[in-house]
């Protein structure tokens, strides 16, 4: 039995009439765990609780075996990269990261060394003299990650860390997260984009309406989903002809014309359907411009799990 890094039992946090967390029960880590859920699911509330900024109304959350609330010494071991700007943008990155390290309790010399190291890690050292307000969103994101890793935390909470990043930046940050994990840091990464998390880890906790809907291996969850009807959108120059052919397909349960050049098909056996579609198109001479699974969106997964 491996101890989880973060363990939540029936955690509830209410904002007036709104439930931020509603009996949330899940275990995170070790290693990288993705926290996925649509906007408003409770991800940021959970992060604010685990970083000791919010007190639970009920239940318990522990980090490395310590209660999340009112355990200031625990904050030495965690790094937090919030999803909001939260920066003094009149500072340059050295001043920003350095100040937070001083608040962490590092001596000025040590803080200076760690600041340089963390900014080099996120490839922002060369911009050290520029004030943060002149940075792009992606550059700010890197500085936020730098402050989160500068004190070498044991557990890193990253709230939508890839938001606003360009594709190259995303790749390098994902690589950094993997390196941190292989060096022994436990990462909990939140995102509302499933494929982003998939590129990082297969261990996920799904959250919606403040509750954990599923936790474990993402592929197993996907396999579970495959037992239920999938919705697929097909872009074609001849939608009527394609619809006529697919109407005879044994695994297709419904067909809709969603746009002049698109049809939406529901199938209970997506794997077979995906296999058959190119053959059918080729045989009948139908031009297919694009195929998109609408159920790939996180919201669709949650709609299913919420039933």
């Amino acid at each position, binding site marked *: 039995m491996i*101890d989880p890094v973060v363990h939540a039992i029936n955690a509830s946090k209410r904002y007036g009439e*709104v439930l931020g967390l509603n009996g949330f029960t899940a275990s995170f880590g070790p290693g990288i765990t993705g926290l996925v859920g649509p906007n408003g699911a409770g991800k940021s509330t959970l992060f604010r609780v685990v970083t*000791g*900024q919010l007190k639970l109304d009920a239940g318990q959350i522990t980090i490395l075996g310590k209660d999340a609330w009112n355990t200031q010494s625990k904050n030495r071991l*965690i790094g937090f990269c*919030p999803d*909001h700007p939260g920066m*003094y943008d009149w500072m340059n990155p050295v001043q920003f990261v350095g100040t937070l390290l001083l608040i962490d309790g590092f*001596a000025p010399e040590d803080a200076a060394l760690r600041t340089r190291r963390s900014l080099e890690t996120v490839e922002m050292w060369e911009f050290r003299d520029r004030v943060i307000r002149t940075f792009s969103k992606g550059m700010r994101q890197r500085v936020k990650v730098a402050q989160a890793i500068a004190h070498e935390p044991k557990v890193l909470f990253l709230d939508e860390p890839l938001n606003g990043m360009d594709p190259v930046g995303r790749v390098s940050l994902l690589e950094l997260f993997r390196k941190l994990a292989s060096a022994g840091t436990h990462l909990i990464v939140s995102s509302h984009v499933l494929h982003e998390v998939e590129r990082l880890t297969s261990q996920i906790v799904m959250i919606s309406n403040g509750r954990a809907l599923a936790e474990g291996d993402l592929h197993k969850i996907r396999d579970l989903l495959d037992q239920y009807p999938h919705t697929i959108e097909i872009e074609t120059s001849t939608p009527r002809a394609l619809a006529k052919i697919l109407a005879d397909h044994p695994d297709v349960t419904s067909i809709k014309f969603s746009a002049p050049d698109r049809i939406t098909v529901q199938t209970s056996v997506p794997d077979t359907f995906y296999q058959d579609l190119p053959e059918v198109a080729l045989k009948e001479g139908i031009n297919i411009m694009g195929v998109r699974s609408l159920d790939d969106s996180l919201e669709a997964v949650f709609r299913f799990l919420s039933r």
Partner: protein
Amino acid sequence: MALSSPRYALEDETRLGRRDRLWAIFAINFRLRGSRTLVTIFAVIGFIATFIPLMVTVFTSQLLGGGSSAALSVFALPYNGFLLFIFIMLLSALAGGGIIADDLGSKSISLYLSRPITLGDYLAAKGAVVAAILGLIAIVPGVVTVLVAFVLGYVNVTVAAEAFAVYLGVGILLTVAFSSIALFLSSLTDRSAWAAAGIFALLLMDDIIAGIISGVSGNVSWLYMSPWEDLGCVAHYLFSVPVTGPALNAAVALAVVVGLTIGLAAATYVRLSSMELVTE
């Protein structure tokens, strides 16, 4: 081979103590607030406007006294009128308006509180920033005047020591009280301009209304509702200013100021600890 489950333990890293962490918060915020042009201008004008009249009064008093030491009551001058109060209001608004509101607006409060500090630490450091800036006009001109007057021989050592102690004591009370007011009002919004306007307007209106009601009703007790009047009363008492006519009771005035300060500090703490911001 047997697998053993990992057990996590909090390590005792060598890090600086709480005082150093608070100092780091103080230093960065003092630099941010104190370097603002308007704060610098009003702090300098406030210092000059307090120091020069006080110095002239002490010198004149000593001269009229035939060279003997100026009386302790002469040093109550800054608390006789409203000039110091105006600068206190201005600096409270300018330095205190954004002290918490800016952190709420930018949500940088999250970065502070995810560090190994408590909400109490955060508020103490923030309050100290406003208090230090207010102290530039509430404490520094007074104690500088006392030292200069003593060096120039305008006051004897007893009066100088008493005046020094009173300036320090009342000054600290004043700065803490007004910081507490600024902190509370700043915690109510995430817009520093609104907080600043609120601090200035509330302090001014409170004093004006207390004065009007007191004047109309003929009951000086209404003046207790103005922190400036309360502090003036305490200062006059400690500077041994002779009482003429109906006046506030210094002990009650002191209790009101201390109560207000503690009450607002507690309210700010409760307000921030129960802050319910849905950030998603």
